[in-house]
């Protein structure tokens, strides 16, 4: 008992020990705030990526693949909730009747594209697409002004004329001053004949804007167009097969997907249990290979959403790791601080050590007293650091606003990262890790002085005065 | 007749303890002539040490004034008072008050560094060292120059303290129970040494003690009781 009693008394009567605590507090605070900010950034990006990616996708399907058969093979898997076919193409988008300015200079434009005339075109079947992604929510987002909204979200590509209907990202529409009903031209090319080996021919597809869509992924919105899958397939095929147009149902009516020759390049899949994504992806890969009966040219690859974005997510993860190392440096210096204050205390308290021993304290008890001092300091520092760090992290946006208001300095220019507020993610596991690290270093820093105290010859200190 | 080296005129000193004021000195008048040995005698708590600190300008009086060589030190700046403390008086304490990090020689030398700038001291460091060594030899510690206080006996420590007090050749030496912590044999030696040195240098000597036997060897005895001089 006397150990803790004395430890507390020693601490309370020596305000300098607060400095050791302050050091720990500051380092824990920095560890929590900076990592929370960075993790928040990661989580936001991951969420954005996640929102716009299906759980699993079968990509690079060859033209000869039978999409229906493949779809059936996939839905046989117990974890597959829904599938949706997609046709992926690309092109240059221009407003009809207008000369566009030259493309933006690299470095002066948005970091992640979105302001280039080049886009990817997703041909989708709305009925099936809304089963695998938040397609409906993208069309009905609150942020879309009325003039840009899709007239009928259940049939976004329905049209009265012969122009193909297209959905454009909200930001792009705003930037270019587009509205529903505006006419666009998509310039692209496709290889004609012989399994992608023939002549590359230019194609111009006349489009009409059916409305805007809005996800939280700026890169996705800026670089994607949506069209009806049947319509896109037909337009790309038009000059290739001059005969009568395929007898496929009006795209986007929610009917059965197109028959036999329906072009499909990608199948997006939603899972019942997204946590089992890796195992499911492995099973699906086998199923795809079985169905295609061929296993070459990299056709029919099954990829999880994480794998598709692995490079990008990995590079941020690595940055976070480096940051953690740098932050750990602070903790080490805080340990120096504790080492200093506790060592001083031991030196000062040599007299007490003699008294304690003479009253029957053991070397172990003396050690424990000083160790308890160190641990108390650490515990207080960690508690305070985590508390202040968490609060700071939560109110980071408000603090940023305040600093902008007070000093005009923007600590975290959000527009660079396409965010609307400072992201923050307080991860319980990380807090635990920080606590562990802090206690580890705190223990090390107090062990040395404590050990010195225990080895102190009590007679010397009693004789000392 | 020349003016006394040290004069206290109607010195009052009180300390504040919480809300109450505790008077320690209540109108002390004192004159110390050059070359004179004065013993301040009194029971514990009579205000001997306080008077000594006031005389040595460590503590300003609440009322009254202190004169060095007939000149009032009242109204001097902190720096000037420090200078006077160094030039005019030398302290010897009961608990020696040596700096444990320094050797005997360094402790004595330290007194020589107090008022010189770094450059000035550097230019006369050999001289200062010679003077300090000579003083230590004079107090019988010629073979202990490199020893630190912890390696010296109590008597030896007090000799170092005496040497330190004398280095600046002060006019007055203020000694606060210099033998209070020593056994009688050692104490005798230290006292003998102090008196010898006092005669050699013709310095005034104010000796605080409660030892009657020691006091009678002084030229004059001043008794303090409850903060006033009683005889």
């Amino acid at each position: 008992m006397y150990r803790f009693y004395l430890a507390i008394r020693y601490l309370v009567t020596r305000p300098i020990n607060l400095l050791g605590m302050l050091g720990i507090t500051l380092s824990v605070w920095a560890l929590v705030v900076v990592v929370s900010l960075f993790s928040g950034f990661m989580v936001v990006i991951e969420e954005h990526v996640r929102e716009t990616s299906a759980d699993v996708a079968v990509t690079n399907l060859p033209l000869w693949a039978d999409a229906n058969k493949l779809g059936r093979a996939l839905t046989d898997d117990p974890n597959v909730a829904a599938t949706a076919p997609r046709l992926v193409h690309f092109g240059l988008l221009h407003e009809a009747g207008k000369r566009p300015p030259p493309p933006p200079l690299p470095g002066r434009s948005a970091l992640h594209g979105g302001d280039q005339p080049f886009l990817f075109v997703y041909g989708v079947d709305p009925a099936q697409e809304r089963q695998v992604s938040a397609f409906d929510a993208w069309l009905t987002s609150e942020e879309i002004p009325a003039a840009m909204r899709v007239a009928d979200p259940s049939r976004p590509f329905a049209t009265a004329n012969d122009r193909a209907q297209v959905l454009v990202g909200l930001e792009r529409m705003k930037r270019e001053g587009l509205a529903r009903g505006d006419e666009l031209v998509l310039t692209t090319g496709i290889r004609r004949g012989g399994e992608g080996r023939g002549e590359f021919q230019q194609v111009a597809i006349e489009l009409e804007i059916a409305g805007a869509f809005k996800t939280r992924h700026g890169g996705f919105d800026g670089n994607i167009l949506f069209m009806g899958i049947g319509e896109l397939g037909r337009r790309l095929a038009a000059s290739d097969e001059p005969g009568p147009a395929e007898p496929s149902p009006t795209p986007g009516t929610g009917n059965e997907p197109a028959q036999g020759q329906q072009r499909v390049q990608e199948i997006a899949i939603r899972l019942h249990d997204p946590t089992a994504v890796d195992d499911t992806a492995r099973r699906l890969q086998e199923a795809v290979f079985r169905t295609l009966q061929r296993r070459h040219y990299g056709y029919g690859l099954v990829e999880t959403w994480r794998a598709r974005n692995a490079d990008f997510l990995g590079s941020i993860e690595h940055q976070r790791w480096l940051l953690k190392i740098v932050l750990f440096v602070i903790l080490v210096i805080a340990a120096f601080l504790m080492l200093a204050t506790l060592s001083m205390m031991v030196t000062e308290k040599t007299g007490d050590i003699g008294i304690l021993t003479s009253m029957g304290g053991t070397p172990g008890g003396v050690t424990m007293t000083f160790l308890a001092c160190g641990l108390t300091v650490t515990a207080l520092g960690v508690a305070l650091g985590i508390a202040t760090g968490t609060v700071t992290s939560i109110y980071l946006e408000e603090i940023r606003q305040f600093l902008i208001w007070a000093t005009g300095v923007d600590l975290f220019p959000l527009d660079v990262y396409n965010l609307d507020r400072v992201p923050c993610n307080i991860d319980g596991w990380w807090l635990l890790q920080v606590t562990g690290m802090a206690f580890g270093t705190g223990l090390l820093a107090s062990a040395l002085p404590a050990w010195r105290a225990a080895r102190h010859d009590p007679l010397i200190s009693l004789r000392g005065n | 007749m020349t003016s006394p080296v040290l004069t206290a005129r109607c010195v009052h000193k009180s300390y504040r303890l919480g809300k109450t004021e505790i008077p320690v000195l209540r109108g002390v008048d004192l004159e110390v002539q050059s070359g004179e040995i004065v013993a301040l005698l009194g029971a514990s708590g009579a205000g001997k040490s306080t008077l000594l600190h006031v005389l040595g300008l460590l503590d300003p009086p609440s009322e009254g004034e202190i004169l060095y060589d007939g000149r009032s030190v009242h109204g001097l700046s902190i720096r000037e008072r420090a200078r006077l403390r160094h030039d005019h008086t030398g302290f010897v304490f009961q608990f020696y008050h040596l700096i444990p990090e320094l050797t005997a020689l360094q402790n004595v030398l330290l007194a020589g560094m107090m008022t010189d700038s770094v450059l000035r001291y550097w230019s006369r460091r050999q001289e200062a060292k010679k003077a300090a060594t000579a003083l230590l030899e004079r107090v019988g510690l010629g073979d202990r120059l490199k020893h630190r206080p912890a390696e010296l006996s109590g008597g030896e420590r007090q000799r170092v303290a005496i040497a330190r007090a004398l280095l600046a050749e002060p006019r007055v030496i203020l000694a606060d129970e210099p033998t209070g912590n020593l056994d009688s044999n050692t104490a005798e030696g230290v006292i003998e040494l102090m008196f010898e040195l006092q005669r050699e240098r013709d310095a005034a000597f104010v000796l605080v003690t409660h030892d009657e036997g020691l006091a009678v060897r002084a030229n004059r005895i001043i008794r303090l009781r409850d903060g006033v001089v009683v005889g």
Partner: protein
Amino acid sequence: MIPAFSPFLALRYLLRRPIMLIGVFGVTFAVWSLLVVDGIFTGFVTEIRADVRRSTPDVLVTDLPHDTSYERLRAVIAADPAVRATAPRLRHQGILQPRPAPRGSSSPTIGTNAVNFEDMTMDSGFALLLGVDPLREPEVTPLGEWLDRSVEVLHAHSITRARRSEVLEDPDPDRRSFLLTADHVEWDMRRIFDLPRPERVEDHRSEWPGMIAGWRRLTSLKLIEQGYPIDLMTASFDVAGDGSAQVNTRRIPMAFGGYFATSHRMFDQSMVLVPIETLRTLLGHDIEDDEAIDIVTDVAVAMQPGLSAGELSAAKSRIRTAVASEIGDECAVIDWREQNSVFLRAIAQEHSMMQFVLFVVMIVAAFVIYATLHMMVVQKWKDIGILAAIGGTRRGIGAVFVFCGLVVGSVGATIGSVLGWLSVHYLNDINDWFHRTTGASLFPRHLFDLPVIPVHLELSWVIQVALGAVLLALLVALLPARKAARMEPVAALSYE
């Protein structure tokens, strides 16, 4: 004046007190980590900035209205005394598609679309076309260096077949301005692809304009062979009398003319250099047409060497005024920093985050010094009284502790600087050694795509950090020193 006893006593205190070593360690560690982290980070930033700089001309006159003629601008811009040379630029966009190989099946096809938003130009055929005049461009851009660099980079990626582009070496300026490949090369290609060609190679004259692609396009083009036919698909705009435009889809055959590398990632990913005349023709301004104008979207300007920042900005505004009055419209004149502002801002953002962390490191290190000095003052209570009794002034007593802080700070800063300098200097060796012994890598290179970790540590910065540390030590030492100086000597003497 500082009395002699202050430094004397300070040194004695320090030497007799191993605890002060902790303060020294603290400062050493802080300075070391500051230098190492900043050395690496600045290395990256410096490298990136150098890459950006390499890819960008000194000054670019841009945001010009449609159908601006180069000849008029050239005269106006070249008249400025600060301008050394100018070159026309025409920006456009298109989709590149190499012809499929006639035999075998390893040809890339555009049907396989990997959608990657972050590097959206990487795996697709999309290209920002930069029309340049190959005769004038070398005066404003280190084109030769770009080509040399591409060989280095590709070889570093084990693509040993890569050769330096030859299209800029043709002695005939007319052929060079279209980046034409040698006649026999094109004839060979036509033979392989079974395209129209004369009977004999001697009768053939190259027709396909060449293009030089950024080396990162290798992943989508998968080409090495110079002269390989590529289709360029793009849109042009026929302007009617009322100003409305008809979008026309165009396709022209071109020849692959090699790679360039500036190492500026965005630039190398997206840019393709094409002959400016080819682009002009595509956009309806054929050189053969007498009414055609030599349109540009930008003018790249090389400035006289050694201009100060003030002179540069003065020259920029002179050029802006002159060009604006010539074309009767607004335009922008931007230097390389302004052209890459978004990109550079993102880097600066990360840099400031890192500096914030390092700032906290320094603060905690300052705490260490404060704590040790404070404890020393407390322990030395009695000494302070003694010093006062033997005539020490307050300033002198305070100076003892300031000196302690100064010495701790100086020693720590010196050791830290030396260690930091050495660590940064041998960082790559350390990383190699670490990799060999543990198998793990502190700095995975594949992430940075660099052969070595770039480090950059300027002596002036080392000195700044060291001085900063000493100053900080001095500053925090003032507090305990003040406490010591204010001590009442009597209280100190009677303190037990």
